[in-house]
């Protein structure tokens, strides 16, 4: 019910704030980008985060997790959004861990979850096949034979796909693209025969890959969850991911806004700080309102996830849509209000805009979620 943070969550938030600020500031992302770093993230730092329990935030103690829930994870994500930190939080912690926890066999859970918690295992969800998020459109084909399954097809925009030790691949085992029935998930080794992974260099300098599956063979025990009925669990985990990503976007928006307000106070033109111009003040106040509204939707949605409420799908669409609208406004205004300096690569504010558009497209943009919300509400 509460939209506030409890003491434990506040402490976690404060700690992650310091951690990302010190260890993974935007300059770290810039260094990975300019150094053409092959992995695109810092595995040592990821192990440090894991040591602090962040990789196991959602997992029960049975598997070594700390079971802080989504509201806890939301704080970590929000703070990671402030510094645009490149980590496997989304791919591994937000998407893969709950999927395995939800539908994995005991053996799969034992194999995978403790390794996620320790930071040793990175997983990626191979879902998208088209440029716009539509999970049911999966066409990648998994054909059963006596020895298991053979996978053929392609995936795009696989977050951390090029560095993942294992992939969770959403496949079609029956029906046609567009059907929600007929989807199945498989665990595929990152180095499997017939699998080609090509890293994509995206505008946000974060990590994604395109994958092609050319007769990739998997054993029967690679099946994750029931045959043909993956959609329900997938959507549930996607809703968690939408909300978690909205939390990350909220952090980015708050930080871009904070930097812009600071700039308005120090940048002088015509002998006065530009923040004294009323037109800019009013636009800043509008952004403030949008940020406050977004924050409320994110907190409510995180709370609903932890309470396993039935309105999670609605709230996921609400939070993600608001976050998308907010971040587009805030990042555009941030660059405009920074003026010429905002257009330079040297100034960091542009990184927020670049990350924003990638985050907007991830797990459905504002339009997708407005349509979905209306449908869920029955209009």
């Amino acid at each position: 019910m509460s939209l506030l943070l409890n003491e434990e969550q506040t402490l976690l938030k404060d700690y992650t704030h310091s951690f990302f600020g010190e260890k993974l500031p935007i300059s770290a992302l810039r260094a990975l980008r300019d150094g053409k770093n092959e992995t695109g993230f810092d595995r040592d730092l990821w192990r440090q985060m894991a040591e602090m329990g962040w990789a196991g935030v959602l997992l029960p103690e049975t598997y070594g997790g700390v079971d802080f829930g989504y509201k806890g994870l939301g704080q970590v994500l929000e703070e990671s959004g402030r510094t645009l930190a490149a980590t496997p939080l989304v791919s591994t912690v937000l998407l893969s861990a709950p999927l395995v926890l939800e539908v994995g066999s005991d053996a799969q859970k034992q194999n995978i979850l403790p390794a996620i918690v320790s930071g040793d295992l990175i997983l990626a969800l191979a879902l998208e096949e088209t440029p716009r998020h539509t999970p049911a459109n999966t066409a990648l084909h998994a054909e059963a034979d006596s020895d298991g399954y053979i996978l053929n097809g392609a995936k795009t925009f696989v977050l951390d796909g090029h560095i993942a030790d294992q992939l969770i691949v959403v496949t079609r085992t029956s029906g046609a693209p567009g059907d929600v029935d007929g989807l199945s998930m498989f665990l595929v080794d990152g180095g499997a025969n017939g699998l080609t992974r090509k890293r994509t260099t995206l505008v946000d300098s974060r990590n994604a890959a395109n994958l092609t599956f050319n007769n990739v063979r998997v054993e029967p025990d690679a099946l994750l969850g029931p045959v043909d009925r993956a959609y329900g669990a997938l959507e549930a985990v996607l809703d968690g991911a939408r909300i978690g990503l909205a939390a990350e976007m909220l952090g980015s928006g708050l930080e871009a806004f904070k930097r812009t307000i600071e700039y308005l106070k120090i940048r002088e033109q015509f002998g006065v700080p530009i923040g004294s111009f009323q037109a800019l003040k009013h636009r800043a106040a509008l952004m403030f309102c949008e940020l406050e509204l977004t924050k409320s939707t994110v907190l409510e949605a995180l709370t609903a996830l932890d309470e396993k409420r039935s309105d999670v799908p609605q709230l996921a669409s609400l939070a993600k849509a608001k976050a998308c609208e907010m971040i587009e406004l805030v990042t555009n205004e941030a660059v405009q209000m920074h003026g010429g300096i905002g257009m330079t690569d040297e100034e960091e504010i542009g990184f927020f805009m670049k990350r924003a558009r990638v985050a907007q497209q991830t797990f459905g943009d504002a339009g997708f979620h407005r349509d979905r919300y209306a449908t869920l509400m029955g209009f």
Partner: protein
Amino acid sequence: MNALERFRAKTRTWLEENCPLSMRTPMPEEERVWGGRQPKFENPDSKIWFDRMVAQAWTVPAWPKEYGGGGLSREESIILGEEMGRLKCRVPLFSFGISMLGPVLLKYGTPEQKAKHLPPIARGELRWCQGYSEPGAGSDLASLKTRAEDKGNHYLVNGQKVWTSYAHLADWIFCLVRTDTTTKHAGISFLLFDMTTPGVETRPIALISGGSFFCETFFEDVIVPKDQLVGKLNGGWDIAKQLLQHERGMIAQIGRAIGGKVPPVYKVAKKYLGDENGKIDDPALRDAVVQHTMNDRAFDLTIKRAAQESEAGTASGGASSMFKFYGTEQNKKKFELIMKCVGTNGLGWEGDEFDDDELMICRTWLRSKGNSIEGGTSEIQLNVIAKRVLELPD
């Protein structure tokens, strides 16, 4: 059972025994009881309920007993509110005296003023109105010009007020007047006087949405005894600030209340645009409707969060300006959307060719435009957010 639990049990019993059943239903606006010298009770049960609550002094449960209040502690007041909410009891008495003047008198009034004015307010015997804005003093309220000249044993008041809600039905007015013309904020005082004093004239204002309870009120050589000054001479601006804060909150609520009479936009859209396959049958309007609906939900959640923060003592400030701004702008957008959905059926001003809901949509659409003006314009709210919350320079 501790004292509070006993109080709750007793209160519950009393309410169940004393609140007429018809007073536990949603109240049409015309059944509101405002008290005053000529009180009106559209519904006979209203009078029974009013009289019983007055007898308990529960019209003002937390005021001190010596001034006609119920003398309840904060905790007891909350319990009374909760129990009334549980039974859906109507508010027995609407009163600017209770909501606005009372707190001012309790804080600034002399013992004599409290003794004279508070009990009649508590009993609903006098109906009060406020006199703040003037034709030349809207957003810049402190530039008000209504003059109160010191004439030795009385003040002589001359000037004009506008937006004096229900002034045509009020018995007394509490009023901001200028007592020093050489300075701005520090030359304002807070006066009380009887609306039947010679020289007071008032008339309702016709709005673009039709008749209204707003009035223009004129003062010509109105004689006000000196003991009707509240607070210090020239100290009225502090009182004004306290009152405005309150008004702002009220108007955000009014905005929501105005909207509340109309079904949600998406239901109007379905009715007028059709909904084959369950989807509003105009995809572009549907997108606008869902965006609006989502913003409503986000706004409601923000109000809820602010209330929780306020209770926890972690509120960050600026909330009331944000709510006033966003709530009223959102309400205006809501009615523009509804007008688009309803088409020519929403264009009726009066007459039998439109049904009541449609006529109300049109009037309420027009009335909604005032929400972002009254009680501090949207521009003022944005200024406040920029200054107080974002600390942007002047």
